[in-house]
C-alpha cells in the first residue's frame, strides 16, 4: 500500500518564499533572459518540488510537471501537426489552458519526457513515475481541423506517443502513467482507448497506470478494468458516488487501484481518521497490497504550502492505516 501523486504540483510558493519561476517566466517573456536560463530555473524548481514530496513522505513521486504550462500543450507543442490557440476553461475548474489545434499530421519529433524523467530520477531518492496525458484527452480537448475524424486523430496520437513511452520504459522509468480524465465524459471512447493503449504500450514492460479525475466512473465501469494497464486511478472525492460504483463490481486480481482519497481541489485538511476510514473501506474492495493512495487529482489547484501539507497528511493517514490494518507499505 504505497502513496503517490496524480500529476502536477504548484509551481510557486507564497511569501516570504520567492516566486522564482513566475519571475523567470515574466523575464523570459520580456526577453531579459534566455530559454536556457529559464530552463535552469525550471530545473531548480523541479528539485525543490521533488524534495517537498519526499519530505512529505510520498513513496512514488513525480517531477511535479513544473515545465508544463498545462496538461495538453506541453505535449502538443512537441509533436508535429499542432498549433496553439486561445484560452478555454479546463473542465469544471477556474483554470484555463490554450487549446491545441490539429492542423497537420500528428507525428513524433523526438524525445522530451525522457529527459525530464531522467533529470528527476537522477535527483530523487524515491522512485519517480513518468506522466503523460493520453490520446483520448488530448484529442477531446483539441480542435481538429486536419483529420476531422476522432478515431483517426486518437490513433495518430497513440502512434506518435508510443516511441516516447517506450523510450521512458527503456530509460528505466519504474512506472508510466497515462492521464485520461476525458474518457469519463466520453464513455463511448473506452474501446478506442483500449486500442490506443495497446499501440502506446506495446512491448512496455514497466508498470503502467491510467488515471482519471473529476468525473463519475459510472458509465465506464467496470470496462475501465479491462484496459491493458496495471493500475486504474479513480477520484473518490469529486464524485463520492464512485465509492458505490467501485463496490458494485469485483476488483480483478490482475489490477491495482489508484485511490484518490485526499481532495486536490480544496484546502480543507482531511483528518487522519478520515483517511484511515477510507483505506479501511477500500480494503474491502481491493487488498491493500494492490492499492495506491493518492490525492484526487494534480495539486496545482492548491497553494503550494497546502499541497505539501496535503501530501504530508496523506502519508500520515497511510501510516496510521497500515498500522491499524496490520499491512506493510
Amino acid at each position, binding site marked *: 500500500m504505497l502513496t503517490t501523486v496524480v500529476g502536477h504540483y*504548484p*509551481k*510557486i510558493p*507564497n511569501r516570504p518564499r520567492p*516566486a522564482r519561476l*513566475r519571475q523567470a*517566466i*515574466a523575464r523570459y*517573456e520580456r526577453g531579459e533572459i534566455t530559454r536556457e536560463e529559464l530552463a535552469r530555473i525550471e530545473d531548480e524548481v523541479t528539485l525543490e518540488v521533488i524534495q517537498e514530496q519526499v519530505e512529505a513522505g510520498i513513496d512514488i513521486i513525480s517531477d511535479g510537471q513544473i515545465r508544463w*504550462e*498545462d496538461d495538453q500543450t506541453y505535449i502538443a507543442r512537441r509533436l508535429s501537426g499542432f498549433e496553439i490557440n486561445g*484560452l478555454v*476553461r479546463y473542465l*469544471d475548474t*477556474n*483554470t*484555463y*489552458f*490554450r487549446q491545441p489545434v490539429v492542423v497537420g499530421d500528428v507525428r513524433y519529433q523526438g524525445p522530451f519526457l525522457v529527459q525530464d524523467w531522467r533529470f528527476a530520477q537522477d535527483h530523487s531518492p524515491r522512485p519517480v513515475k513518468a506522466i503523460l496525458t493520453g490520446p483520448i484527452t488530448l484529442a477531446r480537448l483539441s480542435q481538429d481541423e486536419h483529420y476531422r475524424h476522432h478515431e483517426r486523430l486518437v490513433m495518430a496520437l497513440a502512434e506518435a506517443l508510443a516511441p516516447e513511452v517506450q523510450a521512458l520504459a527503456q530509460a528505466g522509468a519504474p512506472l508510466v502513467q497515462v492521464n485520461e480524465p476525458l474518457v469519463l465524459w466520453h464513455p463511448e471512447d473506452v474501446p478506442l482507448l483500449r486500442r490506443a493503449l495497446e499501440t502506446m504500450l506495446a512491448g512496455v514492460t514497466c508498470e503502467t497506470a491510467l488515471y482519471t479525475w473529476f468525473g463519475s466512473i459510472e458509465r465506464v465501469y467496470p470496462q475501465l478494468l479491462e484496459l491493458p494497464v496495471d493500475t486504474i486511478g479513480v477520484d473518490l472525492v469529486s464524485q463520492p458516488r464512485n465509492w458505490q460504483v467501485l463496490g458494485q463490481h469485483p476488483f480483478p486480481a490482475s489490477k491495482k487501484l489508484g485511490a484518490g482519497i485526499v481532495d486536490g481541489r*480544496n*484546502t*480543507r485538511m482531511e483528518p487522519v481518521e478520515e483517511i484511515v476510514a477510507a483505506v479501511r473501506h477500500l480494503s474491502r474492495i481491493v487488498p491493500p497490497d494492490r492499492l495506491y493512495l493518492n490525492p484526487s487529482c494534480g495539486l*496545482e*489547484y*492548491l*497553494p*503550494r*504550502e*497546502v499541497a505539501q501539507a496535503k501530501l504530508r497528511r496523506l502519508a500520515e493517514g497511510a501510516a496510521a492505516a497500515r498500522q491499524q490494518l496490520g499491512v506493510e507499505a
Partner: protein
Amino acid sequence: MEMALLTSAVGSYPKPDYLVRARNAYAQGKLELQELRKLERQATEYWVRVQERVGLDVLVHGEQERGDMVAYFSGEPGGVVIEGMRLGGLVRSYGNRYYHKPIIEGKLRWPGPMTVDMWRFTQSLTDRPVKGMLTGPYTMVEWSFNEYYPTREDAVMDMALVIREEVKALVAAGCRYIQIDEPAIHTRPEDDFAMAVEAFRRVVEGIDCEFHTHICYGPIEKIYPGMLELPVKQIHLAFKNTGFQYLKLLEEHPWPADKVLGVGVTDVHNHKIESVEEVVEGLRLVLKLLPPHQVWALPDCGLKTRTPEEAEGKLRVMVEAVRQVRRELGLD
C-alpha cells in the same frame, strides 16, 4: 427619450498608473488607507466624467477599489471581508497568471455595508443613474475554497443571504439598478444550475429594484433557455467576442417579452477599437429578433484589461453606433 437602446458598461475600468502604484504600496504597508481611498475616488471621478462626456445612459463606478471580483469581498488588500472568509495563497489560473484564492472557513455573515460608500460617492458626482455592482452567490462560492460547509449548496445558500443584505443596503441608499454578476454559473450546468438560480432568487426576492446580471464566456448554450428563469430584468452576454453566435439560441427559443437583453457589442480582450459601422451591424442583427426597448448596448465584459484610451474609445464607438441606430429607427 424612449427607454430603448440604452447604453451602459459591465463593471470595471482600467486603473490609472498612480492607483496601481498606490495599491501595491498599500499592500506592502507603505501607504495609509486614507490616502488609498482618496486616490480610488479620484480615479472613480475620472471614469464618471469619461462616461458622461461619452454619453452613457447608465453609469458604473468602475471598480477602481477592487482587484478581483471575488477576492475584493474576501480580504484582498484595500478590500472588505465577508465574515467567514479569508484570502488564501496563490493559485495559478493559466500561463503565468496567479491569484489569491479566497477560503470559506466559517459561517458566512454580512459584515455591514461593503459597497454602499463607493456607490453613494459615485452617485453624488452625477445626475445619471449609477449601477450597484455585486458578485453573485454561486460565483463567490465557486471561486473560493470551502473548508466549512458540508456541501457547495449549503455555502451558496448562506452566501445568498450575505449578498441579499448588501442589496438591501444599496437599495436603502437609493440605488435603482443593481447588477449581480454570475460568470461561473455555467461551471456545472447539469449538477448546479437550478441551485444557482434558486440562490439568486433568494438574493433579490421581494426587493424593489431593477436587477441585471452578466454572464460571460462559457457554454451559454448549455444554460439557455434555462437561464431565463433568473429573476432579473436584464441578462447581459458577450456577443461581440463570440461573433453574435448566441443569436442562434434566440432564434431557436425566443427571448421573453419581459426581459431586456444586454448586448456586448465591443470585444474587451482586443486592443483594436471597432468601427462604428461594425457595432451598428451587430446591433442590427440583434434588432432583427428583438424590439429596441428590449435591447441595451454594453461592452462584452469589464474593460479593466484595456488601456484608459482604448476603454474610452470602445465606449465612444458604442455610443455613436447606438445614436446612429436610434436615428435610423426614428427613436430620437
